[in-house]
């Protein structure tokens, strides 16, 4: 199966109520690896991710995949910053994306069981998902995003509010996905995590890509004063 990448953003801008939230951004995502998007609160990370996924209306510019839009949409998944739980059981939440595709029941059940075990919820398949703890909801949202085996996975701060053990669980799931050639684009506020996972990184500031590069240079030899300051933990105006 051919990949849907590269994704090319050209002269993309998002304006809402006269305010520019994002752009102008020109960016190309190559077929492999994990791209980490970092930056201060409100710098436009979520907006950029939503633009890439195609769920944010562009004010100018274009975002194009290597395949037609319709096909590309079917082969990507997105995990939102605050997990969205359907008012259904854990099992029904996990199986929902497959059932939308009319997958055979046996296949749905098998994958649901596999993923429930992977995220440690196998004993709570019939619990209402809305009653899970915050961290469990985040894991469920990740598993639900991976259950269709997407080519591209977008994650908006998947480990926010998680403890060390849960963060390790999620990183291990992401590593497995990477080794199975899933392309990952994610945001994080955890610089340690950024270093552990990234193959390349993007630094967002005031709605534009301020610096971008392969992980080794990005983390080892930041070019701009702002990124150096961000790594030091300074507050950037």
């Amino acid at each position, binding site marked *: 199966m051919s990949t849907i990448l590269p994704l090319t953003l050209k002269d993309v801008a998002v304006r809402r109520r006269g305010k520019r939230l994002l752009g102008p951004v020109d960016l190309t995502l190559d077929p492999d690896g994990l791209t980490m998007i970092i930056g201060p609160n409100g710098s436009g990370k979520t907006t950029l991710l939503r633009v890439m996924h195609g769920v944010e209306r562009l004010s100018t510019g274009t975002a194009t995949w290597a395949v037609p839009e319709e096909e590309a949409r079917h082969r990507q998944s*997105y995990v*939102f910053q605050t997990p969205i739980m359907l008012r259904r059981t854990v099992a029904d939440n996990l199986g929902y994306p497959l059932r939308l595709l009319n997958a055979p029941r046996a296949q749905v059940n098998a994958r649901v069981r596999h993923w429930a075990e992977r995220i440690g919820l196998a004993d709570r398949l019939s619990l209402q998902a809305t009653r899970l703890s915050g961290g469990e909801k985040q894991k469920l949202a990740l598993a639900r995003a991976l259950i269709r085996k997407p080519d591209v996975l977008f994650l908006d701060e998947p480990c926010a509010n998680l403890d060390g053990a849960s963060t390790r669980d999620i990183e291990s799931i992401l590593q497995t996905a990477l080794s199975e050639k899933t392309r990952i684009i994610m945001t994080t506020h955890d610089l340690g995590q950024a270093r552990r996972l990234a193959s390349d990184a993007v630094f967002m500031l005031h709605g534009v890509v301020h610096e971008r590069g392969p992980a080794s240079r990005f983390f080892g030899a930041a070019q701009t004063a702002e990124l150096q300051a961000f790594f030091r933990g300074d507050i950037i105006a």
Partner: protein
Amino acid sequence: MNDIYEGLVSAFWLVVTLDQDLMQISLRSLQVSLSALVIASVLALPLGTFLAIRRFRYRRLTISLLNALMGLPPVVVGLIVYILLSRSGPFGVFGLLFTPTAMIIAQVIIITPLIASITHQAMRELWAEYHDLLISLNTSNWQRIKTLIWDGRRNLLTASLAGFGRAIGEVGAIMIVGGNIDNATRVLTTAIALETGKGDFALALALGFVLIALAIGINICIHWLSRTEREGRW
């Protein structure tokens, strides 16, 4: 005071002996209100859901209209339906005035805006919750509506029950369009009004008991539903 006491006692006996008049009137009440409920739900549930998830030109206007209709005094609805159905009115040829059908029509007009409005409110909240996920998963319109209706089924049932509660206790409109005719269009509320006027407290009270029992029953249902919603058992 004595009248009322004797009334209470004989009302009790009317109920426990399943008095024929009482049963007939109660059943007619149920028949009219349940018919109105089914028709109104078929109209209002999809309408309310549609208003919640689709943006279209006259959406705001439609919602305002719905809310205005919800505040219509039933007596006025009765009057309008009367005029429309009366011999000289536009629908006079069907001869529906003073039949249960006329009462059902009036009740449908009264409760459809109520059910649609509650549905709209509930579905709007659910849609706000689900919106991003359903868009991200590339769902079709039809899949969205199915998902919302299924996951919002408890709210929809609550909306319908609220409509039923309003219908069964309504008196003004059905008095006008039904005419409160014995053995034909007499229902619980109109019978209570009549018997009270005549001073027959026993029958009036017995009818009142049945009506109250129905109202409490509905409220228990609504309460139970909202409780199971929180605990999420179905």
